[in-house]
């Protein structure tokens, strides 16, 4: 379990550029849960998850993972984080060695490493022939896939993803989400997903934390969120396209997926 208590954070305290990014944030993430974090750009999402992953030192409040404080080195092996700009995470000479980097550091055998690299490449949809290519010679979306594969290869118990599907083509996005929320979840992983994509949140998250100006504005299910117009507009969010489409039909019913929308229409409209 991840437990965040009364966390506040200010960048560059004591300078003219002082900026309070988080104010008094508390929430828990249960074992096996998918928790989404949404909010306007600049609302504090990336700051929050970097604190949860122990990449920014806490100055106020506490974060524990499996009852250990985040500063404890033992949690390093438990948490994998994919940054918002994962291309900044790439540094090795080939795609293969880049993905293998973290598993190597954690002392896995060569056979285990190569098996995990292969599986991770499959999970993100990177063809095997890209193994020997330099990650810097890839397209934007391909780089992102390499960075995500590098984290998946670690098989972390806690997976933190900062806008993982930005820049991925629709098919890659769909497959990646299915992998993460299928295969990865089956292994019991707990996931924090930062996303601007309301459709992804609707489909995959158990709960959503909405941030606005560094504070929590809402915690609840996606369904509840997408029926709360005042929260959405205060946070600069909007319902997924399918939910918006259905509201155009004046049915007073919320659909979060195409399947739901189809059922509602079949029930309410005569087949002409």
């Amino acid at each position, binding site marked *: 379990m991840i437990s965040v208590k009364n966390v506040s954070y200010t960048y560059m305290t004591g300078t003219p550029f002082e900026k309070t990014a988080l104010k008094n944030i508390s929430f828990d993430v249960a074992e096996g849960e998918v928790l989404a974090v949404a909010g306007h750009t600049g609302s504090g999402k990336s700051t929050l998850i970097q604190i949860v992953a122990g990449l920014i030192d806490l100055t106020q409040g506490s974060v524990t993972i499996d009852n250990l404080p985040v500063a404890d080195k033992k949690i390093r092996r438990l948490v994998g984080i994919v940054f918002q700009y994962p291309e900044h995470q790439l540094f090795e000479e080939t795609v293969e060695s880049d993905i293998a980097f973290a598993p190597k550091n954690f002392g896995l055998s060569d056979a285990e490493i190569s098996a995990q690299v292969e599986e991770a490449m499959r999970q993100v949809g990177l063809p095997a022939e890209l193994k020997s290519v330099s990650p810097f010679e890839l397209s*934007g*979306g391909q780089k992102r896939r390499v960075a995500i594969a590098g984290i998946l290869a670690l098989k972390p118990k806690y997976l933190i993803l900062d806008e993982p599907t*930005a*820049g991925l083509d629709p098919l890659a996005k769909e497959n990646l989400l299915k992998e993460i929320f299928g295969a990865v979840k089956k292994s019991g992983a707990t996931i924090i997903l930062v996303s*601007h994509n309301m459709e992804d949140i609707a489909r995959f998250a158990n709960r959503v934390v909405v941030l606005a100006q560094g504070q929590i504005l809402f915690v609840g299910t996606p369904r509840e969120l997408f029926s709360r117009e005042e929260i959405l507009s205060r946070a600069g969010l909007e319902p997924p396209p399918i939910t918006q489409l259905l509201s*155009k039909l004046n049915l007073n019913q919320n659909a979060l997926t*195409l399947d739901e929308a189809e059922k509602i229409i079949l029930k309410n409209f005569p087949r*002409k």
Partner: protein
Amino acid sequence: MSRFESGGTADAIYRFDVLILSPRRNEMLRIFSFVSEEKILDIIRVENLRHVYKSSSGDKVALDGINFSIAEGEFVAIIGNNGSGKSTLAKHFNALLLPTSGKIFIDGFDTSDEKNLWHVRENVGMVFQNPDSEIVAAIVEDDVAFGLENLGIAPEKIRERVDLALDAVNMSDYKNFSPSKLSGGQKQRIAIAGVIAMQTKIIVFDEPTAMLDPQGRREVLSMVKKLHAQGKTIIYITHFMEEAAQAQRVFLMEGGKIIKNDTPREIFSNVREMKRLGFSVPVAAELAERLRKKNFKLPPKILTADELAEALK
């Protein structure tokens, strides 16, 4: 579907190109008025364009025989899977990359001819995905002025253009702000203001909304449409089908080739074909297709939520 495939006009323009190498090609053609104005203004023309990246791990053919023309004032969206060649193509429009073979003409100027570089860059502005990596100055208005200073424009003129550009993106109130205090959508609007201030005829957007929240995406797209309405030629790369559906024409790229070049309505209403190619379509088109399978009699080629709502009434 389009005049670009209909041979005749294109041939005529070719011949003129041999004759008229002047920078004022379009104006001259209009003066001679051999061809009606609407048909001359291919502000971008790409012929048999190939791009091969050379690297240690071997050659990579990123563009493999691309041909198209874009008329002045058109709004073209480019979609395609990761690695299909969209950004590589985008970088040819302002000569950041040069063809391995084939040609690309901007306003009649061959980008591979070094003496045209200035004219090409003056005509093509670029906006990229990551707003943070585009911001160069500590104050918003300096950031917008950056490109102009490099062009050697007089300071009073720069001020005037910067003010106009910030006004155009509704960011005048923020001119003395530090860009780091702005939201992602606002940063993208500053980047767009920078391009507006350059007064280029063509603006190329490479996934400008990929990193933005829904509100930021809306802001940027409405800005793009406004620029188009003012006569700019727009090239818009995106993975959001709802955005591509708002262009006049869509190029669909795969493996370094343009495999479809048509109106969004033709491209996206063919739901089955798009799925087969591994693409998604706007939700209204997809839902309409599902309902048709359940024996709903709906008009063909539904693309937007409004159209579907109307059809179900």
